């Protein structure tokens, strides 16, 4: 109640008297004719009104007591409680000062708010993506295991996985999973859900406990039982989070599965999976082959086992397996990497670069605010001097100035926190969709703590400089009371150094952006070997139980392609098992005549229809595409290779007619197509082998469609055609191929965009810094300028004088910046493509741009100098 609050606020001695007085007066009022209600109202009003004075009285009481003690204690000054009242006064004074200078306040707060907000945003992102551990218990012990060959990592085969599990002693648990989407018939039609087949040990290895129900048993894994564990999201969406979801059926790919468990919201792997089924080892023959890798393996290292020990252990296992199975496991090693690292390793460098960049911007911004404070301080020199003369005491003045900076920082920090909330949301919206752990990024207490911490740091950064400077000045009170003419020297030098530093930092940022920009531009000009413009890609996930034979399946797919080809807007259409930049696709080993089996020959394996090459405009350099006969499954076994393959093994123009051993058959080369990049624009193109749909293994196929005009507009028509042929056929991940290609450089584009923004901001701030500095310098030298002009100096000469000052500063700053940039650009090398970290063109361009900006700022400042009329200048003396 109010009374208790007031009692708490009042100094102890006044508690009883005050509350007693109020009670007594209330009764007295009733006695004098007021109604009970009126008296009660008066009482409550008095209570409310008394709250603040009570607090104030308490503070005063402690201060007075301290002062009294000061007087009674010999020599020792107790500063304790007395500081509190001074601090409060300082804060109020600082706030009042800000209110009276709205222009300055706005500029300073905006700069600070944006700077602190930007740093908080990037730090939040870095912390949530890179630093925060995965949502699994003891996640540092979780690793991924790959089959390694020739320095490349591959998926693991079933027999190898089982042998690893038996032999790897340093692991507490190993689990395997195979990502697999399946078709589900939803209310809105056939839908495709992402999920995975997993071993019974998979969830325990990760340490994921279902919130409802259970995981799988070894028995269920052995028999491939029709059970399923669903994700938390799916549980909420389809089953309303009700307990009766357990035991319900989910039909996946036409097969009924009983729901036995629900995972917690953090889920498991893969990150976008919504369901998990027991892995079906026996579903196809090839699944049992040691030479075919199709699962991903995760492991939990036993506690107290060092990573090195685990790796050595695995090396031993690999050696044993190489010796036991010299054909399939030739050259195979086991590669172990941390699970978190495998997920975020790729974005580590770009994110850290962004963090460094944004910190540089903050420093530049702080220097600007320091400049603003110094400029305003010049106007207050008299005030400072008077206060010092009246015995303000150096420490008190310092405290006052620090308080001002602290208030500025606190307000800036609060504003920064708000900016960060928006900034994080913006980042999540604009970042490339495949940024790992993007869903985990959110503003939380850490972000606010960072904002507060950064705000504190900025106080120290820009608060102390002006404060120390003034106080040093004020130690000779008369100095400030004298006129300001000729007092240029000292503080101007400090400011010059700061502005020079701004320029240097802006240079570094701009060089970083420039290098990334040149690299990105180079990337986008790489010819991938095919034409993505106007091509639509549609996934056609089929359910095997729809068909009775392989021929049936093939005929079905052909009907779809024919139907699509017949559409009005379609130029070409084809099928493939993997579209460049969209799917990684399988890699198979092959053999050549005259080449020993010890050689590890691997190529990307593609199954295509004859018109696939035309659809993507991949040139047929030699020979021909597949014939109708071959597509139907007849004719001799043939293969088409690409130029990389041909050049490497047969030499230019000598590939046709040669033979390649692939999928247990010797196949004749009937065509050579152009090289294709299908993973990354930056790397070298891989070897490809193509087989016809009629002669290849069963693969999940994608439809590629070359349209006359906008390919994406064809989608509704395609949907219609497919639905007519089979209403249960879903279309998965349909989209323009250009999206996938540009998506491959989305991260570079994003990093470049942000860094350019930072560079631009730093440049702007540095230019403002120069402008501010020169204006300040002119203001200080107004009398001097007036004298010069009175003595006959022309406007141009005065301008030149000011310009010189600005140019010298810019040149020095740029020189220092260039040195810093040369040193720092090394760290960008891993992000650069075809651009050396010391690229002279970039450095030169940035130098010229900065010089131009500096000149512009200086010139604008110089113009103001010439508008000084000599008489006014002299009078201001």
């Amino acid at each position: 109640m109010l009374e208790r609050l007031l009692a708490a606020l009042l100094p102890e001695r006044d508690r009883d008297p005050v509350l007693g007085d109020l009670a007594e007066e209330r009764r007295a009022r009733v006695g004098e004719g007021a109604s009970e209600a009126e008296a009660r109202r008066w009482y409550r009003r008095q209570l409310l009104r008394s709250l603040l004075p009570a607090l104030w009285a308490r503070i005063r009481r402690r201060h007075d007591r301290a002062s009294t003690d000061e007087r009674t204690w010999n020599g020792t000054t107790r500063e304790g409680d007395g500081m509190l009242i001074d601090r409060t006064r300082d804060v109020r004074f600082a706030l009042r000062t800000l209110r009276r200078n709205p222009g300055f306040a706005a500029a300073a707060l905006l700069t600070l708010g944006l700077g602190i907000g930007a740093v908080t945003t990037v730090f939040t992102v870095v912390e949530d993506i890179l630093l925060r551990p995965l949502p699994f218990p003891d996640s540092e012990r979780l690793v991924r295991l790959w089959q390694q060959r020739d320095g490349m990592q591959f998926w693991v085969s079933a027999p190898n996985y089982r042998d690893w599990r038996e032999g790897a002693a340093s692991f507490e648990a190993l689990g395997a999973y195979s990502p697999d989407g399946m078709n589900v018939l939803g209310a809105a039609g056939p839908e495709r859900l992402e999920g995975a087949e997993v071993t019974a040990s998979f969830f325990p290895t990760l340490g994921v406990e279902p919130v409802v129900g259970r995981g799988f048993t070894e028995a269920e894994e052995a028999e491939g039982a029709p059970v399923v564990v669903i994700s938390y999201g799916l549980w909420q969406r389809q089953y309303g989070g009700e307990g009766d979801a357990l035991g319900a059926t989910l039909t996946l790919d036409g097969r009924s599965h009983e729901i036995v468990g629900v995972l917690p919201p953090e889920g498991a792997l893969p990150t976008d999976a919504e369901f998990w089924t027991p892995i079906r080892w026996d579903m196809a023959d090839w699944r049992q082959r040691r030479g075919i890798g199709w699962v991903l393996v995760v492991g939990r290292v036993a506690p107290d086992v060092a990573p090195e020990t685990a790796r050595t252990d695995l090396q031993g296992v690999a050696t044993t397996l190489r010796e036991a199975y010299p054909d399939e496991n030739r050259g195979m090693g086991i590669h172990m990497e941390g699970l978190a690292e495998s997920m975020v390793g790729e974005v580590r460098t770009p994110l850290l670069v962004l963090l460094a960049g944004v910190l540089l911007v903050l420093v530049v911004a702080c220097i600007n605010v320091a400049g603003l404070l110094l400029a305003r301080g010049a106007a207050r020199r008299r005030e400072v001097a008077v206060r010092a003369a009246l015995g303000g005491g150096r420490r008190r003045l310092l405290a006052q100035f620090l308080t001002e900076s602290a208030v500025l920082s606190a307000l800036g920090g609060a504003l920064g926190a708000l900016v960060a909330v928006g900034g994080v949301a913006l980042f999540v919206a604009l970042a490339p969709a495949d940024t790992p752990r993007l869903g985990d990024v959110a503003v939380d207490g850490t972000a606010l703590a960072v904002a507060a911490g950064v705000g504190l740091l900025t106080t120290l950064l820009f608060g102390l400089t002006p404060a120390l400077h003034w106080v040093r000045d004020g130690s000779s009170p008369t100095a400030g009371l004298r006129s300001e003419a000729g007092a240029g020297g000292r503080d101007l030098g400090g400011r010059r150094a700061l502005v020079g530093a701004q320029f240097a930092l802006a240079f570094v940022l701009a060089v970083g952006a420039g290098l990334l920009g040149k690299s990105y531009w180079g990337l986008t000009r790489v010819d991938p070997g095919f034409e993505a413009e106007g091509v639509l890609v549609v996934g056609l996930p089929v359910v095997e139980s729809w068909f009775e034979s392989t021929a049936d399946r093939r005929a079905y797919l052909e009907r779809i392609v024919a139907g699509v080809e017949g559409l009005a807007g379609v130029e070409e259409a084809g099928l493939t098992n993997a579209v460049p930049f969209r799917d990684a696709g399988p890699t198979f080993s092959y053999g050549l005549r005259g080449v020993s089996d010890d050689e590890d020959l691997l190529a990307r394996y593609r199954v295509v229809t004859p018109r696939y090459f035309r659809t993507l405009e991949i040139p047929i350099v030699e020979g021909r595409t597949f014939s109708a006969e071959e597509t139907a499954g007849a004719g001799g076994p043939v293969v088409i290779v690409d130029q990389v393959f041909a050049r490497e093994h047969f030499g230019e123009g000598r590939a046709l007619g040669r033979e390649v051993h692939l999928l247990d058959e010797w196949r004749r080369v009937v065509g050579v197509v152009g090289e294709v990049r299908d993973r990354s624009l930056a790397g070298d193109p891989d070897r490809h082998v193509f087989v016809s749909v009629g002669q290849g293994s069963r693969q999940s196929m994608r439809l590629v469609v070359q349209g006359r005009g906008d390919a994406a507009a064809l989608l509704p028509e395609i949907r219609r055609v497919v639905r007519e042929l089979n209403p249960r056929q879903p279309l998965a991940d349909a989209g323009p191929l250009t999206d996938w290609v540009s998506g491959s450089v989305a991260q570079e584009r994003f990093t470049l965009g942000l860094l350019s923004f930072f560079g631009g901001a730093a440049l702007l701030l540095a230019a403002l810094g120069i402008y501010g500095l020169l204006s300040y310098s002119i203001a200080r030298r107004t009398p001097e300028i007036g004298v010069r002009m009175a003595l006959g100096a022309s406007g141009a000469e005065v301008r030149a004088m000011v310009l010189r000052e600005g140019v010298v500063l810019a040149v020095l700053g740029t020189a220092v910046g260039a040195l810093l940039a040369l040193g720092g650009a090394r760290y960008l090398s891993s992000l650069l493509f075809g651009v050396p970290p010391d690229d002279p063109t970039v450095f030169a361009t940035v130098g010229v741009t900065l010089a131009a900006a500096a000149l512009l700022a200086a010139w604008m400042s110089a113009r103001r100098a010439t508008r000084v009329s000599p008489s006014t200048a002299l009078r201001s003396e």
Partner: protein
Amino acid sequence: MGRGDHPGELEQMVLLSVLALGDDAYGMTIRRHLAEEGGRDVTPPTVYSALDRLESKGWVSSSLGEPTAERGGRAKRYFRVEPDGVAVLREARARMDRLWQGAPLEPDPEAP
């Protein structure tokens, strides 16, 4: 507010109220007197702050009175103006008079 040796306006008004109330000068009565006669409706903590300051300068003294039922069993603090307090009041009055004499204004006879 006054610092050092000169009482500020509120302090003067409080001193005068205490004088006027004589033996009956305690928190509530002083506050009411200030409001009704002096036109200043301040809260009890403010009154006590002023009284504390006056006491620390030795211009008033205080003593604890008996708790009563009407006060919910809480004690009251009585105040008395000390000779020093009377002296500063007289001084303050004299100063104001001198200043008034020098100023081309008549004191408003209607003012309370």
